[in-house]
């Protein structure tokens, strides 16, 4: 039985090309065949979750049925009533499987959970968002089949980007005109090829050839202050660059494939290394995740705090929410001290960043703003981010406790 990592090897791309060809011809002639799209979705899902990974496949099916029951049930309920506790209950129920999967390794000595499968986080984000928008009333005509397509859209199933139900539905129900579609195909092909460069050349060099050497050197240079050494610094940059090129490469594959399928899945990265501050960084790095957190955690918490007048000043509200928001993101990555430290680090960085921006606004005349300060800001931001990724990488865990 064949089994693939999504976008993992040339054979996968060859199969993808063959499978997408009829779909492409259809779209060029203004036709979208739901049946064909469903069939190739199932085909690629079986390739990803079948064979030796069949337990994950079973977990996926059970999980999706569970989330369908929740979202569908809530959509029906919401047409008649709108009670707060019911809504909270539904959200909690929707995130319970993900919570179990994330907590299990921490309490079971690193053992994975049985109900886990690759991409459960990203499916949970989509389901929770559907429930929240149903509550808001902005999502009115929930449909089970569309929801299934949205959840199981194979190009983005394993690691995003995280699309929105209504945006996806709009693309899915329409066929782009020929001129527009040709533009999308052109973009899609380009994205996939840039992805090849990022993931299979640059990230391969960094992750497979360079990083193991730096790790070995860092382990041999232990003994100094906090076991720090020059190789640790090298590892920090290599790891950060590898994370970017690997993930951005993957995202380009996912977005490129979506475009060829006539779906404009949003981009995940927008030149993150040129951000002049942390706030801007989060507008450019893993965008669909940070916007999801912004819309469904940060904003909601701020509104809740303001509505219940928990804090007097809006600044305090924002600061507390930043920290909570980033801590949740840290926990989401996994229940280990370094992920949580990473979340806390970014929470604090956002608070400090906000304070600085306020101060700068007040003293606009006395603070210089030119290419030099801009360059310094970019340099500082990039290095802070790299340091946070070093925390995130767990290298300190290896250096100190292994």
């Amino acid at each position, binding site marked *: 039985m064949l089994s693939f990592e999504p976008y993992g090897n040339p054979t996968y791309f060859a199969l993808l090309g063959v499978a997408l060809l009829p779909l492409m011809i259809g779209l060029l002639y203004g036709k979208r065949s739901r049946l064909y799209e469903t069939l190739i979705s199932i085909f690629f899902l079986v390739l990803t979750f079948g064979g030796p990974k069949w337990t994950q496949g079973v977990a996926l099916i059970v999980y999706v049925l569970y989330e369908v029951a929740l979202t569908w049930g809530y959509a029906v309920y919401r047409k008649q009533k709108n009670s707060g506790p019911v809504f909270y209950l539904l959200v909690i129920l929707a995130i319970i499987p993900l919570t179990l999967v994330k907590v299990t390794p921490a309490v079971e000595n690193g053992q994975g959970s049985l109900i886990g499968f690759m991409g459960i986080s990203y499916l949970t984000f989509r389901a929770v968002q559907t429930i929240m928008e149903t509550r808001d009333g902005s999502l009115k005509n929930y449909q089970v089949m569309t929801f299934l397509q949205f959840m199981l859209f194979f190009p983005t199933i394993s690691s995003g980007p995280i699309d929105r139900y209504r945006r996806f539905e709009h693309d899915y129900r329409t066929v782009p005109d020929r001129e527009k579609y040709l533009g999308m195909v052109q973009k899609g092909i380009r994205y996939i*090829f840039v992805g090849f460069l990022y993931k299979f050349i640059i990230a391969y060099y960094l992750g497979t050839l360079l990083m193991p050497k730096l790790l070995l050197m860092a382990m041999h240079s232990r003994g100094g202050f906090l076991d720090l050494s020059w190789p640790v610094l090298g590892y920090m940059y290599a790891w950060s660059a590898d994370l970017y090129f690997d993930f951005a490469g993957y995202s380009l594959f996912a977005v490129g494939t979506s475009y060829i399928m006539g779906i404009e899945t949003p981009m995940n990265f927008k030149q993150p290394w040129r951000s002049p501050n942390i706030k801007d960084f989060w507008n450019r790095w893993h965008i669909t995740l940070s916007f999801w957190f912004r819309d469904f955690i940060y904003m909601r918490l701020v509104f809740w705090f303001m509505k219940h007048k928990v804090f007097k000043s809006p600044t305090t509200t924002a600061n507390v929410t930043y920290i909570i928001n980033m801590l949740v993101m840290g926990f989401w990555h996994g229940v280990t001290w370094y992920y949580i430290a990473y979340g806390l680090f970014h929470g604090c960085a956002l608070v400090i960043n906000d304070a600085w921006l306020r101060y700068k606004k007040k003293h606009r005349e006395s603070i210089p703003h030119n290419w030099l300060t801009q360059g310094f800001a970019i340099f500082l931001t990039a290095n802070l981010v790299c340091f946070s990724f070093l925390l995130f990488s767990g290298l300190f865990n290896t250096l100190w406790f292994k």
Partner: protein
Amino acid sequence: MTKRLLRIFGPLILAAILVFAVLAMPMKLGFSHVSAERERQAAVSLSPNVLRGKHIKQEALKDGYVPFFGSSEWSRIDPMHPSVLAKKYHRSYRPFLLGARGSQSLTQYFVMQNIQNELRNKKAVFVISPQWFVKDGTRKDAFGFYYSQLQTTEWLTHFRRDAIDRYAAKRLLQMPVAKSDHFIYAALQRVAAGKKLTDFQRFYLQTRKNMLTQEDQFFSGIDLPSQNLNRVNQQAKQLPTHYSYSALDSLGGRLGKAATNDNHFQISNKFYHQGLEKELKTGHLKNFQKHLSYTESPEFADFQLCLDQFARLNTNVLFIIPPVNARWQKYTGLSATMLKQFDQKIHYQLQSQGFNNIVDLSDKGNVPYFMTDTIHLGWRGWLAVDRRVNPFLSKQQPQPHYTMNDKFYSTTWQQLPPSQLAQYQQTNK
């Protein structure tokens, strides 16, 4: 629309055609020269990519390197290591170390498949580790790690329909890694059943072989590890300018003594502190090898593959049988009788088929500083190896005469209890 489509897909199609054409090309490209420096590096790198590949090995063996087949002992680089002595004393040969931790006979058989011309009528050195001959033979994951599709396809394009290759195919089919290519797996099934390959299989294997050969040429030299070459150069500095066995022997004693002074096993301090000390504290290791046996194992048949391959190519081979550190052996309870029986069994398999160049060091486990740790040769051990390897490789040797016998593939032989060896020899004369 056609024009636009062509603009989008033209470059893609062209790129695909070009890549495929370059990879599937049956001939070598011009820029395949391997520099002397790269050969020096590769010969001691112990890199799995080199072992799995072809091009670098092939070029080096053409340039006077001699294949040294073995496993983890090669990484024990001290001043008496064969690579260091050959370099320091400007020997007429240079060892090309093949094998690393976990590589055993079956891996070596496939390694030989794409350096056949470089082995034919030439010499080789082969270290037989008794530890390979455990109950289950080679570990499936270790075999998988060193498995090379390139070597397998090459073998499948020149295999013979005899007991030897049938056994090799059967053995390979037992390894999970054989399933890594569906078509190769199907071809192996036919070889194991003694059938010819289909036309399609031959075409597929030929194309795949070409692609893997090109890939190997392009990529296997990238990122060769250089630390072992640096170690060889460093260690050579400790040696006296002129070779003298007695001077080297006493130097080996001195170096060994200094390097093993903090434990009573005469195990190198570095190895001892890399986890062994911790393990010893638990007490689990006392007598833990009491019931271990190296006398009944599928490895005997796997090893026969190597012997048959040498015989087919008329390669003259010097075999080395290293001992076990006697102090360690006593502690772990490993049976001396059993080791002796292993020695007799392997001797019979070698000598009855005409492999008479054997450096049997199995009784040297109690010579001080002969071993660098528990089971690996060091200082004086390497020197004892050199005393035989150097004349074997530097001087003209008489032609070997091999008389091969397929009985060594039988389960009877693999599982023959040592008590029945004498009787087996009698009845199989």
